């Protein structure tokens, strides 16, 4: 080499340190959070399409009563896999994708706290998704509904591998979710830019932080429930079998202790995105930042105390029902706080009607419609009518499609310029918004009515002549309209990636740190570690008249893969952190786990053994320390 490393320009030096080896082998070893984040986004989006196509097929069958397009076996697999896909393989991973991509950029850091664990959580997500979907190849996808109530899901009533895929697949996926959660917590605690104290974080980070902590307590009950189910099915235990002293209710408690927190886990980061994006497009800070941050955290907490509202019709004592009904009612307050904070921000701001903003504004309406139908189901006596009817299907789609899909699509409109360096087409974006918005309402609003007309959920067909046909047909039309909207989005992304306008550093004039670096960001994210002096570092000139945060000066950390560690509460510099480089261990570990879970599925003990041994080897290899340098 002609020049020594020290003589190269800064960006050149940093690139050399942080770059991933080119080619497939390099890609398999990459631990760059941006790469992983994009993989998460794309993979989760593919699952959205898979789940969506499953739903479209269901909608065709339900377009009219007594259609015979799907057999009951097929329908049951489709609606189960639709629910499982949407809730586990799309809704949560897509948000992990955003967090993975954006966190270090927002934090002014070079990577996540555990880059390799980040890769692990992606690989496990991918493989567990493949695991669950491989059930279609053998024609035995899970068919017990997304909450798989025992004893229907016991071996006696569901022989075959269907529910083994479910029990093992979700346990496997749980590893990814948990590892990811730990990573987010430590990243937030350790790698914030100096000065970025807790009251200066974007709300989005509060969302992800809250759900990451929730995950630590919410994933285990699902894992326990699934392991019990698997043992019941394969080893003859009796956890859910009343005849042997077990109880089907045990499954319901365990599942919903997980399940309710989970539905907030899949929306709080998305709501956080809204809380950050609305202010950008309203050209003013969020009204009531502290309240919204607290609302986010308290929703996560309260979410652990409402699970029984999914079990109102199971014959529990009145006292229990009232308690959980009250808790479910109280949980609306933090949501209401957020809603009025958004409304006030829009009211007192100067809205800029971009496609992204339209999605956020549309979201507010959808959230409230979905929210109030939740409040209706929280009233026990009325829930006895509503539960397990299409009304609940309406509720869950307004909150899931409304609070998750809308912010996600709007979030892509917002951050795509950062990720790719090109703008998405605004014109197509507006078409995209309106087709999806109208489509969603045409698709899901009539479900409220159908519920009230007495139509139960999870039926593969229904009698004609009960007044259900017309609304079902309307829904089917809405479903295809919504799908067209999704298609427009895909077209927009595909086209704009190649031909979109150049984005520049900060096309939206947004306030947070990710908008201070080039689009797309360089591999090392930030050339210097910034020092943050306020909640809106890039708005300081306009808000307080001077640039107090130091964005372009600060430590450069060029001695290797390094980033800054700061203290947990007030983000004071603590140390320089050495970050691990690219590695194959995460992929190997994920593959070993996959071998283990396939072994368990097939009952091949040798494969279980191989998987376990390989897991041990991978973890040991991963953690194997470097020989100590000579002690200085």
């Amino acid at each position, binding site marked *: 080499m002609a020049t020594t490393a020290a003589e190269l320009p800064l960006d050149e030096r940093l690139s050399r340190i942080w770059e991933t080896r080119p080619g497939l082998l390099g890609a398999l070893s990459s631990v760059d959070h941006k790469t992983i984040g994009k993989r998460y986004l794309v993979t989760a989006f593919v699952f959205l399409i898979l789940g969506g196509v499953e739903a479209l097929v269901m909608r065709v069958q339900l377009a009219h009563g007594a259609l015979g397009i799907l057999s009951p076996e097929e329908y049951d697999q489709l609606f189960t896999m639709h629910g499982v896909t949407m809730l586990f393989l799309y809704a949560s991973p897509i948000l992990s994708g955003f967090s993975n991509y954006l966190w270090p950029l927002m934090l002014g850091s070079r990577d996540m706290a555990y880059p390799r664990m980040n890769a692990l959580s992606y690989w496990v997500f991918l493989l567990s998704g493949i695991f669950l979907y491989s059930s279609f190849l053998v024609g035995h996808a899970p068919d017990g509904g997304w909450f798989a109530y025992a004893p229907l899901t016991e071996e006696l009533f569901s022989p075959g591998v269907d529910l083994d895929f479910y029990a093992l697949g979700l346990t496997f996926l749980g590893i990814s979710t948990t590892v990811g959660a730990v990573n987010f*917590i430590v990243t937030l605690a350790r790698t914030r830019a100096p000065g970025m104290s807790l009251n200066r974080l974007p709300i989005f980070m509060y969302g992800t932080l809250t759900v990451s902590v929730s995950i*630590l307590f919410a994933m285990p009950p699902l894992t326990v429930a699934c392991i019990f189910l698997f043992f019941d099915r394969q080893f003859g235990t009796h956890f859910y079998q009343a005849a042997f*002293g*077990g109880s089907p209710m045990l499954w319901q408690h365990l599942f919903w202790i997980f399940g309710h927190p989970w539905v907030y886990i899949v929306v709080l980061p998305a709501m956080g995105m809204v809380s950050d994006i609305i202010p950008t497009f309203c050209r003013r800070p969020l009204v009531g930042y502290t309240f919204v941050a607290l609302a986010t955290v308290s929703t996560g907490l309260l979410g652990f105390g409402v699970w029984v509202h999914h079990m109102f019709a199971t014959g529990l004592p009145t006292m229990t029902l009232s308690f959980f009904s009250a808790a479910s009612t109280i949980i609306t307050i933090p949501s209401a706080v957020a809603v009025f904070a958004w409304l006030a921000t829009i009211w007192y701001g100067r809205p800029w009607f971009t496609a992204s903003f339209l999605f956020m504004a549309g979201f507010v309406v959808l959230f409230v419609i979905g929210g109030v139908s939740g409040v209706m189901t929280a009233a026990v006596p009325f829930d006895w009518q509503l539960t397990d009817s299409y009304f609940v299907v309406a509720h869950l789609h307004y909150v899931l499609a409304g609070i998750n899909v809308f912010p996600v699509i709007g979030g892509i409109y917002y951050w795509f310029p950062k990720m790719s360096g090109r703008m998405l087409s605004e014109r197509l974006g507006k078409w995209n918004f309106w087709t999806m918005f109208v489509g969603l309402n045409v698709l899901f609003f009539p479900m409220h009515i159908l519920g009230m007309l007495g139509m139960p959920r999870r039926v593969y067909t229904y009698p004609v002549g009960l007044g259900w046909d017309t609304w079902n047909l309307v829904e089917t039309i809405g479903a295809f309209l919504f799908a067209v909207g999704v298609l427009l989005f895909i077209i927009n992304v595909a086209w704009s990636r190649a031909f979109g306008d150049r984005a520049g550093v900060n096309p939206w004039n947004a306030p947070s740190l990710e908008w201070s670096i080039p689009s797309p960001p360089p591999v090392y994210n930030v050339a210097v570690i910034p020092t943050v002096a306020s909640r809106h570092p890039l708005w300081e000139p306009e808000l307080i008249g001077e640039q107090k945060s130091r964005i372009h000066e600060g430590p450069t950390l060029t001695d290797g893969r390094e980033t800054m560690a700061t203290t947990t509460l007030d983000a004071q510099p603590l140390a320089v952190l050495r970050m691990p480089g690219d590695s194959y261990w995460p992929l190997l570990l994920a593959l070993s786990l996959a071998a283990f879970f396939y072994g368990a599925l097939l009952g091949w003990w040798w494969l279980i053994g191989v998987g376990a041994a390989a897991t041990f080897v991978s973890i040991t290899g991963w953690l194997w320390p470097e020989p*100590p340098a000579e002690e200085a």
Partner: protein
Amino acid sequence: MATATTTRSLPVGLRGKASPAFWGMALLIVNEASFFAYLLFSYFYLAAVAHGAWPPGGRPELKLAIPNTVILLVSSGTMWWAESGVRKGRMGRLKLGLLITFVLGVIFLAIQGVEYASKPFGLRADAYSSLFYTITGFHGAHVAVGLLMNLVVQVWVWRGLVTPTRRQAVTNIAWYWHFVDVVWLAVFTTLYLSPYFGLR
């Protein structure tokens, strides 16, 4: 453009409780603790809804379980002894401590195996037996994992990869081991003692 400011006043890397490695272990422990909490929740739930006697076959035998508990507690002590050894730079004590802990852990598992063999019921007898074997089995698996960690760290110690200044691995596995012991106390209290307190 960017101005370089140096950070040479800051230490490189974090040690002890501030290090990401320690945080990772701590959060793993939180997660695992909640896993066991739900296992025990399941026990109490099924006990509460049981129709007949609980446990169905009468109160569990304590003859093996009490000494076994003592063994595990002692192993926590030896682990602590080993870890404080490395903190003081006494590598010999570390090696010995880890070894003793390892042996005690193996004895614990062996006694657990003997107890399994002596139980009049198998895994499939009823819900109680399912709970008993599953919960103690998961605990046993955690002990086994702790032993594997112990073994790996012993190898590292012997190969000089762990030094008094680079001892995070020892701290981490020590915490994990203490956690496994504390979980055992919870499991022991629930499965073995609560029937004696009239808790069903």
